[in-house]
């Protein structure tokens, strides 16, 4: 990404809560500002220290911050001086254009939702995750909801389909994203009553390419560009993928060490496996994005290293530049997929 391309977008970064510490955050920020992205960094004084000497970074000292061990919505309201609340307010005030955080997911979602507000007609914002699909070319598969809403209505699932489709078009460059609904069978009557109702509504919806139900085994099979589900199922699916990938990687490593011939095979495979590991590295996708708001909010991985931080900032910048929020609002309105329209139908 050239400096010229990124000029003009400022990202509000909450530096608190990153598991790998402020030095890793600083390294990621340094890489992002080298692309020409401006960063306003929010945090406690000691966490901002490594960022002070970086050109293109403005630091804003916060008096407080919010961790993972509290009820997010109430805490965001009770701590107006917390770093994530200040970062969200910065975007709402127009001083910056996207929130990025590698800290508490819940606090980021609450602060972003309260400060930026939901898009007109959106009932529930959803967390969209770009699944790192191994092998092949093309954009990642977008899974939503990744955990923002453990319980949903059919109306929400329909809106998630539109939100994901608009994001996929605007940010990932997929011209006509295929939208699938996660269920326990391909037939339209398979699933919970909510899923069956959502299937019927999506099948008759205009403005998106709904391909029907997809199953868990299809998550990494490029069957769909967007996969829609509730936040409970989505989060379980995501963690299952992560855990399975780790277990398989460990098993391969152990098998490769089980004898001299295996070790030789392992050595020969090492370059290919290294490339695969790189494809599956969550740091490459830049984290999750909260869709359905009137602004851009990115939730980085808690364990993000410098690359993850840099890519989360770049994702925020890219989402702003591609006018994803505006294009999402237009799609929802044009397709009659706003809350009022869907309720009336």
């Amino acid at each position, binding site marked *: 990404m050239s400096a010229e391309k990124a000029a003009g977008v400022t990202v509000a970064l909450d530096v608190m809560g990153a598991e790998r510490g402020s030095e890793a955050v600083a390294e990621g920020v340094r890489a992002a500002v080298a692309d020409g992205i401006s960063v306003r960094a929010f945090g406690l004084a000691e966490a901002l220290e490594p960022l002070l000497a970086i050109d293109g970074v403005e630091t804003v000292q916060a008096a407080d911050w919010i961790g993972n061990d509290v009820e997010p*919505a*109430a805490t965001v*309201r009770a701590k107006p001086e917390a770093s994530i609340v200040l970062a969200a307010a910065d975007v709402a005030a127009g001083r910056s254009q996207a929130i990025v955080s590698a800290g508490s997911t819940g606090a980021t979602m609450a602060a972003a939702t*309260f400060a930026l*507000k*939901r898009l007109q007609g959106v009932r*529930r914002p959803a967390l969209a995750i770009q699944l790192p699909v191994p092998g092949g070319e093309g954009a990642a598969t977008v899974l939503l909801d990744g955990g923002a809403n453990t319980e949903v209505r059919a109306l929400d699932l329909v809106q998630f389909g539109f939100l994901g489709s608009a994001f996929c078009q605007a940010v990932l460059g997929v011209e006509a994203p295929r939208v699938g609904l996660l269920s326990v069978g391909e037939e339209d009557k398979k699933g919970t009553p909510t899923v069956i109702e959502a299937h019927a509504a999506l099948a008759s919806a205009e403005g998106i390419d709904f391909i029907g139900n997809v199953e868990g085994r299809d998550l990494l099979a490029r069957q769909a560009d967007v996969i829609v589900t509730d936040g409970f199922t989505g989060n379980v699916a995501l963690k299952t993928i992560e855990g399975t990938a780790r277990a398989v990687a460990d098993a391969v490593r152990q098998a490769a060490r089980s004898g001299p011939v295996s070790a030789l095979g392992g050595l020969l495979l090492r370059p290919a496996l290294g490339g695969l590991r790189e494809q599956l590295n969550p740091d490459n996708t830049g984290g999750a994005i909260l869709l359905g708001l009137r602004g851009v909010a990115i939730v980085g991985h808690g364990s993000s290293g410098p690359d993850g931080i840099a890519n989360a900032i770049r994702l925020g910048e890219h989402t702003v530049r591609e006018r994803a929020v505006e294009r999402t609002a237009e799609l929802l309105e044009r397709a009659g997929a706003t809350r*009022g329209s869907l*309720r009336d139908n």
Partner: protein
Amino acid sequence: MAVSREEVMEKVREHLASELEVPVGDISGSTRFREDLDADSLDLYELVMELEDTYGIKVSEEEASRIETVDNAVDFVAAQIPA
């Protein structure tokens, strides 16, 4: 800030009509947020924060949890600001 109860009522009705996409004529003092308007906790949080910002008041979590109807919200705000 001198604000009449009627003005607060109008503010609440306009906010709810816009955010929930329901006709403003369907919202009266006795309207219940959850049962009649299908509003959820996020909708109520946003209403409370809108009222806090507009009228410079503070609503605690406990107070917010007791707001069940449009009248409850309007009465709460009216009691916090001088008439």
